[in-house]
């Protein structure tokens, strides 16, 4: 629309320009002329014999000279009168001015403006055309790409369809040929069934392999995410650690260490430094998770034991609650969102790690939650059993400090690992906690597995849990610097 308007305007304007120049600008009488007539007077004014009369003489003179009316440019007339060496006398001349009939200068001056206006209008149209041309080209590319893609997909579909038909006929031909061979006795029915079974097994195996590949890919992804999170926490941890003044931190650590050593003959300090796995046992709301987090925090800050991982099927829920002070300690979260396969892998890796590490390696700690529930899961039940068995014997030499949380220290909680109850009682520290109403933890617990001053193993010793051995309190009082 706009382009058409510009085209029409340009056409009309150039037409107007030509009209102004060659029609309205023209003039039949454009110059200033002088009209000159030479009419001399007769000198025969006296009446004499043999001479003509004055009137007759004047008539003859007029007939000879005055009948011509000369017209010439006023400019030429005036110039010649001035510049000629012998200018003519104006006596006897009748001179009159003839002026131009009209002034057409305005049209002559307007024509160039109209012509250039036409040029500019067409130029604007050319620019619009150029832009539209590029847009058209790109749209054409999109169109041709889309249509080509649709056509290729259609061709491929038809080719695949043909291949399917061909395969179907091929299998039909093979089946008929096999039936024929069986009928004619060249092939037994049993042999045929065996072949079919083998083919089915191979397909099944291929399916299993494919599933395994997908699981491996998922596992690698989870591992990468966990490593990235750990690196991020490590970076944040380093940043916060650098901000803390070393002397203040050391003073608070000394204060806490002294407090741990002084509480009820120092059993808290004993369990902190013990290499035995600590089992925190109790019902819901008994405070076992918070006590576990407190032990982890104390070990991390006082004994420089890095937290390697937290294995928790409900880790995604506990992140902002029980583990909120542990997540920033650069640990990996394993098995979140009920990923029991990842937990099984984590336990296998832990067993392998205990086998690989030595006492000279830097100390690390790991936290394993909900073992009672994990032991009942088909995906990781066997791994729990193996994990518990190895934790009783391998962790000390691997310099790893393990904390396990369960509802009860039963065979079920330990993955039905029967046959080593005595070993289990001797090689673990068990802290059994209770709650008042399922929500409020009681401030005392039963402690087992710790040696007293006489070297006797304590069994269900009643101890109190001080109110400052909670993660929030510890962070507020000692670890907030």
């Amino acid at each position: 629309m706009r382009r058409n308007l510009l085209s029409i305007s340009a056409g009309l304007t150039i037409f107007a320009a030509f009209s102004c120049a060659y029609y309205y600008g023209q003039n039949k009488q454009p110059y200033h002329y002088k009209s000159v007539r030479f009419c001399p007077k007769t000198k025969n004014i006296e009446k004499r014999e043999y001479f003509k009369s004055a009137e007759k003489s004047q008539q003859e003179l007029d007939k000879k000279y005055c009948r011509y009316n000369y017209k010439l440019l006023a400019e030429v007339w005036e110039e010649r009168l001035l510049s000629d060496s012998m200018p003519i006398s104006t006596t006897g001349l009748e001179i009159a001015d003839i002026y131009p009939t009209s002034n057409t200068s305005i049209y002559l001056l307007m024509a160039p403006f109209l012509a250039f206006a036409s040029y500019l209008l067409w130029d604007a149209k050319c620019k619009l055309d150029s832009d539209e041309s590029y847009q058209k080209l790109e749209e054409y590319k999109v169109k041709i790409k889309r249509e080509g893609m649709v056509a290729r997909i259609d061709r491929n579909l038809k080719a695949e369809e043909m291949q399917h038909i061909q395969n179907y006929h091929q299998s039909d031909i093979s089946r008929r040929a096999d039936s024929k061979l069986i009928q004619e006795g060249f092939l037994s029915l049993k042999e045929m069934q065996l072949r079919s079974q083998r083919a089915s097994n191979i397909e099944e195996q291929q399916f299993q392999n494919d599933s395994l590949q997908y699981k491996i890919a998922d596992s690698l992804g989870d591992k990468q995410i966990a490593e990235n999170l750990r690196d991020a926490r490590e970076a944040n941890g380093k940043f916060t650690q650098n901000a803390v003044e070393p002397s203040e931190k050391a003073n608070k650590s000394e204060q806490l260490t002294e407090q741990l050593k002084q509480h009820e003959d120092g059993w808290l300090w004993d369990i902190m430094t013990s290499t035995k796995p600590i089992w925190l046992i109790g019902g819901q709301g008994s405070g076992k998770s918070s006590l576990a987090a407190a032990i982890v925090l104390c070990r991390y800050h006082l004994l420089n034991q890095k937290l390697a991982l937290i294995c928790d099927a409900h880790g995604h829920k506990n992140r902002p609650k029980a583990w909120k002070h542990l997540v920033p300690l650069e640990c990996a979260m394993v098995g979140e969102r009920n990923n029991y396969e990842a937990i099984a892998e984590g336990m296998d890796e832990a067993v392998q790690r205990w086998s690989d590490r030595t006492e000279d390696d830097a100390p690390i700690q790991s936290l394993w939650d909900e073992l009672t529930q994990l032991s009942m899961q088909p995906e990781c039940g066997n791994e729990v059993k193996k994990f518990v068995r190895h934790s009783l014997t391998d962790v000390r030499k691997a310099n790893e400090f393990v904390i396990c949380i369960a509802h009860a220290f039963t065979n079920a909680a330990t993955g039905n690992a029967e046959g080593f109850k005595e070993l289990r009682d001797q090689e673990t520290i068990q802290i059994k906690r209770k709650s008042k109403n399922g929500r409020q933890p009681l401030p005392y617990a039963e402690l087992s597995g710790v040696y007293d001053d006489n070297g006797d193993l304590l069994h269900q010793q009643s101890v109190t849990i001080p109110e400052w051995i909670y993660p929030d309190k510890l962070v507020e009082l000692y670890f907030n610097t």
Partner: protein
Amino acid sequence: MIEDLEQELNAEAEQTHGYNIEPDTSFTHDEVEAIARYKEKLAASLNKNHGVLKGLETSAWGLSSYCLAKFLVYSSGTIGIFPSIAIVLGINQIVNRDLLEFRINKSTEGWQLEDMQKLVRFGFSTAFGCFILWGAIGDFLHTMNNSNQTYDDIKQAIVQYQRLSEDDKNMTIITGVIVAGGIVYALRGKG
């Protein structure tokens, strides 16, 4: 040496564009050919438009030179003749400045003319300029020439008229001489 310098200058000019070229979406051979055909069609349309634009530009300059020349002659008369010629030829030079880039070089084989096409086109454009010029001021020149002729005719008529009394005087003398001669001859015949 000069060629090397020119190459360097050209290379610098190319670098000053400063645009990175990146490949377009991939297409099949058939698609590329179809796109090329479509592009040619679009280019032809654009070229046609640019041809019209060039024509309008030439028309605008031609009209301008014609109208200005005619206006000068109308308003200034003889004084406007030379400015008119200067305007028409000057505009012709401006419009066709790219046509002046032909070169005449002397080599061992003699004089060589490069871009002769431009020279020929410049000749045509100059002839067109002269045509415009004659259209604008030719009528005035013709009128001026006629006016001079007319002035001469008037002068001639006056001169002819002034010569009449001399002729009468001569006629009287001749008549008197003839009459006197006749009288003398008659008297001598009687005597």
